[in-house]
């Protein structure tokens, strides 16, 4: 900075430059208060009283500047007349905002497309990709039964359009007690959100079929969120809200709190769900990413059933609320 100012001073001494003619487009000059003062002038500066113009402030080494050679601009001159507002530095100045030579601005696009002169593969920025994500595969520590549960997803597609598959389920003592699969068309509708539509099939504990409408994406504050509305036969409906946050403890160790809420439109005694808020689960999993794609974890999951769902559970002699330790792996490729 020091060298710049010296150069500037030197330049001013050599040339009998007037303030009006000062090239504020020069980045060195642009920092000068004199230039800032120009910029500060009101937009319609045609009739300006220059006696009110602030003189350069002392913090720039003006002591070395020969002000006697710096004639003040003629009174009532138009600020804009001598200024090159086409210059990008000037363009920022308010004086320029009004005075900028009117050259047309466009995105330059041609009206019509023109073929490539030679045959070529177009720029393939959007290849078909696949991703398989094992969100959770875990064993629960639960009164000797130690159920195995999973949540997995897979997709195939491009940036905007994907086929999306989801499954979750539970096995206890070699028996699949819960199994749900979904096949969805997923369309990116927002920088962070996908709209998903498709079907869900429950195979266990009872066979149920649902239509699915959902939104999946990243909410502000990095909440990975999936909200899905399910519409089934016999007027059945359900809403599932899932959200997860990843708190990085280190570059490889991640603490992931998670919440899931399920609502149902009506009672379904066969599957043990009741209308209203049926259950909530809160999970906290601590994983270590040995590599990005593979991380074992340990965690705890708290679940609680509500309303009629809780009543169904009590009738069956099951717990309404439970806290379980989990041990599992998360992986993707």
């Amino acid at each position: 900075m020091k060298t710049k100012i010296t150069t500037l001073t030197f330049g001013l001494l050599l040339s009998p430059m007037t303030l009006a003619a000062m090239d504020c487009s020069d980045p060195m000059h642009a920092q000068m208060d004199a230039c800032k003062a120009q910029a500060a002038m009101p937009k319609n500066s045609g009739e300006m009283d220059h006696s009110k113009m602030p003189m350069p402030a002392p913090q720039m080494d003006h002591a070395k500047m020969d002000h006697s050679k710096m004639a003040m601009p003629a009174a009532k001159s138009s600020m804009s007349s001598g200024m090159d507002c086409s210059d990008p530095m000037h363009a920022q100045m308010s004086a320029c905002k009004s005075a900028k030579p009117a050259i047309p601005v466009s995105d330059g696009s041609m009206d019509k497309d023109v073929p490539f002169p030679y045959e070529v593969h177009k720029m393939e920025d959007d290849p078909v990709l696949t991703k398989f994500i094992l969100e959770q595969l875990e064993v629960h520590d639960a009164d000797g039964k130690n159920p195995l549960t999973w949540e997995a997803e897979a997709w195939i597609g491009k940036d905007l359009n994907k086929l999306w598959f989801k499954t979750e389920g539970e096995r206890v003592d070699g028996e699949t007690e819960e199994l749900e699969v979904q096949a969805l068309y997923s369309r990116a509708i927002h920088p962070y959100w996908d709209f998903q539509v498709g079907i869900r099939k429950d195979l266990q504990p009872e066979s149920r079929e649902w239509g699915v409408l959902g939104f999946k994406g990243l909410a502000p504050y990095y909440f990975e969120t999936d909200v899905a509305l399910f519409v089934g036969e016999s007027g059945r409906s359900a809403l599932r809200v899932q959200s997860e946050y990843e708190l990085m403890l280190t570059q490889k160790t991640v603490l992931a709190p998670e919440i899931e809420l399920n609502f149902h439109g009506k009672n379904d005694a066969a599957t043990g769900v009741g209308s209203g808020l049926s259950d909530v689960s809160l999970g906290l999993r601590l994983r270590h990413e040995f590599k990005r794609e593979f991380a074992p974890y340990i965690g705890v999951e708290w679940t609680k059933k509500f309303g009629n769902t809780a009543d169904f559970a009590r009738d069956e002699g099951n717990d309404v609320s439970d806290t379980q330790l989990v041990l599992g792996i998360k992986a993707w490729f």
Partner: protein
Amino acid sequence: MNNKIDNGFDAKRRRFVQGLTTGGMLASLGLISPSVLAAKPAMKEVKILDGSVFDLSIDEVMVNFTGQLKVATAINGSIPAPTLRMREGDDITIRVTNKMPVTSSIHWHGLILPTNMDGVPGLSYAGIKPGETYVYKFKAVQNGTFWYHSHSGFQEQTGMYGSIVIEPRNDDVVQFDRDYVVLLSDWTDENPDTVYAKLKKMSHYYNTRERTLSDFTKEVREMGFTKAKKSRDMWNQMRMSDRDLSDVTGMTYTFLANGKTPNEGWTGTFKPGERVRLRFINGSAMTFFDVRIPGVKMEVVASDGQYIKPVNGIDEFRIGVAETYDVIVQPAHGSHAIFAQTIDRSGYAFGSLTSNGKKAKVPAMDKAPLLTHADMGMDMGGMDMSDPAMAGMDHSAMGHDMGRMEAAKPRVKVARGVQVDMMASGAQVRLDDPGVGLRNNGRRVLTYADLRNYYPTKDARPPNREIELHMTGNMSRYMWSINGVKANDSKPIGLKFGERVRFTLVNDTMMNHPVHLHGMWSELESGDDNYLPRKHTIVNQPGAKISYLVTADAKGQWAYHCHMLYHMKGMFRRVIVA
């Protein structure tokens, strides 16, 4: 050697080249695949080819930069490709034979030549098919430091790049006793298609220095919870990270100087008192380097191969992908490190300048920087300047006045939607901003505001119109576009032959975009219209605005794109001059 800082990086991977003879050993143990065996080992030395007729052949070779044998694409068997030395005014003939099983191409980056010699498949020709030879013929109408690289797929990433030095026809305006090319590049053992797929599946895959809990607790200790939370709010609401400096990092990259890993260390010799010309070329796919030679002042004499008014006393400069800078140094007796740390400080390329035959000591890397609100193009008028994120910025040095900034509303249509995750509402021209990580670092850092053409501006006409282009993207989906429209959905940009046009770029992303116009000079509006520096690649900093003038003096269809290899396929336009 500690090649990395604080990012949980696996040091074992960095056991560099054990020598290429290992190849035979591994092969006999059956540890490498047949396709690797089919390729010949790469040559260790980079040749210099001198003259006006050149024969180049493209073939797969076997390389070992990391201890792993990998197949690379190489020109004349070496990485980098041979340095081509030619003379201004000569008629140049370059015969390029493609010995690979896939179509290839070579583009002469920064050379002014007819469009059919420019080497862009689809625009110049159909590419060079397997087994074919394409004969390039053009006149070397300029002098300086340039480079050449494949313009097909991701072949550039896998080794297809080399230097071009064109000697001036008349006396050189710069005096020097020695002349070295320092070509910086990035190598990955991964298939570039895999790298691209990973970025699409998890855009922060290669970021090994994400924010952690302790960063937040530290901020809480320093400024209290309320302020700490507030300083995080903008980022959290935007779902972006101030640690997101490079898409692809040292996690997968090994950084090379003239094809040498940091452990090997390229070495150039000099005699004390000599003026040494170093021609820096950034031939990376995705890496910005901050270059310095500790203890040695640099005189920057050329930018993108074009002489500028010498800028003395430079300690450090940032070189964007595809840019070149020529510097003159006069080192004292001893060994001096040429240290090119990456913008995100995830690694470095390294070489030595020596007068005693010894390698220089590797300097420590600087602290990894954080992006600021300015880098996000935030309108700073309403900003809390006590924000620690802003503390590192010298606002007075940024050439603007805080109070009066107005939001830079797009003056052209920017298609909002999935393609665009942010707009830089307060994008400012920041010519004298050295960029994130280099601000107020106590060194004299080169900025674009320092660049003045050595010669007066040739075309003194003011522009007759302006083309505003927004560099747009969706970081988390890893999609890139211009004005919210990706290349495949875009219409070409039309220029009238002979017209003078201003291009204004607004960077609505948090990444640097080095924008390269083929066939014509981009004359950077760096502050003096009478001496506009001519560049082929203009870096548009995150959240910043920049403008340059173009005289449309070359008829035909030209490529115009961001030179970040994994941005380019979306951030690409055809420019048609007719």
